[in-house]
């Protein structure tokens, strides 16, 4: 299920609605993206983010999200999935995006969830305009691309 909305969401309620009565589900993996304010972290050299505005491409957003959700269902055995992406003005700490994947097996749920959020970061037509003390700036995509590429290398996670 795809929702592109201005409103906030309640993770517990969304998952309950998605999984209720479906007793074949063994695991539910989810990811919530938040507006981050790195002002407290000098190592990043980032400026304080006061708030941001998420612009999107109505129509294409829903189409692209539905396509990638269908792709996840082809790759993994999922009982249910949900993608919520907000747009409009958001403050530090606010929820931006939610991905939920439910499956009989935890591995499928976890992998599909990681796949969807990586894809969202690199393909979903959203753009962040951050307000900083020195003015509004469009967020550069570089950091997101690097992180997504590293995602599937997983050298750090080897047992």
């Amino acid at each position: 299920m795809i929702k592109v909305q201005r409103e906030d969401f309640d993770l517990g309620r969304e998952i309950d609605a998605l999984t209720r009565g479906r007793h074949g589900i063994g695991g539910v993996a989810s990811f919530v993206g938040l507006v981050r304010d790195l002002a407290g972290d000098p190592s990043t050299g980032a400026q304080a983010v006061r708030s941001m505005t998420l612009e999107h491409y109505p129509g294409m957003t829903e189409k692209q999200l539905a396509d990638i959700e269908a792709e996840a269902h082809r790759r993994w055995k999922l009982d249910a999935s949900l993608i919520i992406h907000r747009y409009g003005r958001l403050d530090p700490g606010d929820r931006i995006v939610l991905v939920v994947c439910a499956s009989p097996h935890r591995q499928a749920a976890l992998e599909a969830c990681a796949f969807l959020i990586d894809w969202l970061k690199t393909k979903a037509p959203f753009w962040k305009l951050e307000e900083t003390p020195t003015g509004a700036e469009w967020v550069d995509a570089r950091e997101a691309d690097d992180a997504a590429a590293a995602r599937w290398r997983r050298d750090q996670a080897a047992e």
Partner: protein
Amino acid sequence: MKLLYFAWLRQRTGKGEEDLTPPASVATVVELVEWLKTLGPGYMRAFSEMKSVRVAVNQEYVPFTYKINSGDEVAFFPPVTGG
């Protein structure tokens, strides 16, 4: 042809959406961009850094060599930063 601009492309062109009829010689996205740049300094600025511009035709990502038709919806935007 319906044209859409997002993020700083919208700011530089000064519009989010417009209907234009390019000359018949404009067959691909590249040619469309070259023609748009002749329409004014805002377009010139918007399309001055093409490595930071992405294009979708009828809401699907396409390469700049993609062939376009008069009824298409063509959208220009920077690399996405959602999620």
